[in-house]
């Protein structure tokens, strides 16, 4: 008896809860677009932070190097002359780092597209 009564409630609930499917109407595409934007923001966050940080650090870094350059006078000229010709200047090191970060970002963008 109780089971049969439960079956009636089951049927009632099943019919009451029966619902037409909700039309997509661009819902899925909106979420996928949002996801793709979020992925790009996450991917770009680190390279952009590096570039901004490098841009801010460039001037102080150059000043530090310039301040340290007189110390090189303490190094015997025979030792300092040859290596100095081959050592890149700090500006080139920073610019190279920035170009590398930009290159990595570009490669990731190309991989995605």
């Amino acid at each position, binding site marked *: 008896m109780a089971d049969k*009564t439960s079956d*009636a*409630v089951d049927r*009632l609930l099943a019919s009451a809860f029966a619902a037409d499917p*909700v039309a*997509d109407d661009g*819902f899925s*595409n909106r*979420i*996928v677009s949002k996801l793709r934007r979020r992925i790009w923001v996450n991917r770009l966050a680190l390279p952009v932070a590096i570039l901004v940080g490098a841009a801010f650090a460039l001037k102080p870094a150059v000043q530090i190097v310039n301040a340290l350059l007189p110390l090189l006078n303490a190094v015997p000229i025979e030792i300092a002359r040859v290596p100095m010709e081959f050592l890149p200047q700090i500006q080139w090191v920073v610019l190279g780092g920035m170009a590398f970060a930009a290159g990595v970002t570009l490669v990731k963008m190309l991989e995605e597209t």
Partner: protein
Amino acid sequence: MVASQDTGAFGELIRRHQSQVRNFLRRLTRDETLADDLAQDCFLHAWDKIHTYTGSGSFIGWLLRVAYTTFLQSKRKSKRYREIVEQAGHEAEHGPTAIEGDPAAELDVDTLMAALNEQERVIMIFSYACGLSHREISEATDMPAGTVKSIIHRAKEKIRTQFEIEDHQYG
């Protein structure tokens, strides 16, 4: 594919399950706009947590668990969400519980759910609107399967008693 963060494959999963998730949240919130906002949050959370789906249960069961968690979190965090959900719960609890004449004559979901408390409503929505098994509901709500069964039984008894449902009806 999805586990490796393929948005195309995930988009296909969204298209396949969005109707069920949105219907579930609409039943819970009784507010279409709020439900759709929550459904969007749910799918974004699902994307972040997709690696936790082990494949042991049905995907829709896992997804509805994410949807339910999203619903509970929003209810706690957002004043606006909380107001709408509380208003919906208040209407359900104080809405029409008796219909003149035949009590079972014009029973819709809102009328039936008004007879139940919030916990019972959630479990019944999982069971009847989403078609989840007791085990899946147990996983989605972090309740023992035995508790789920007894809540369903109690809710059905409440509905049967309150609306005087006979065993020959709705055949």
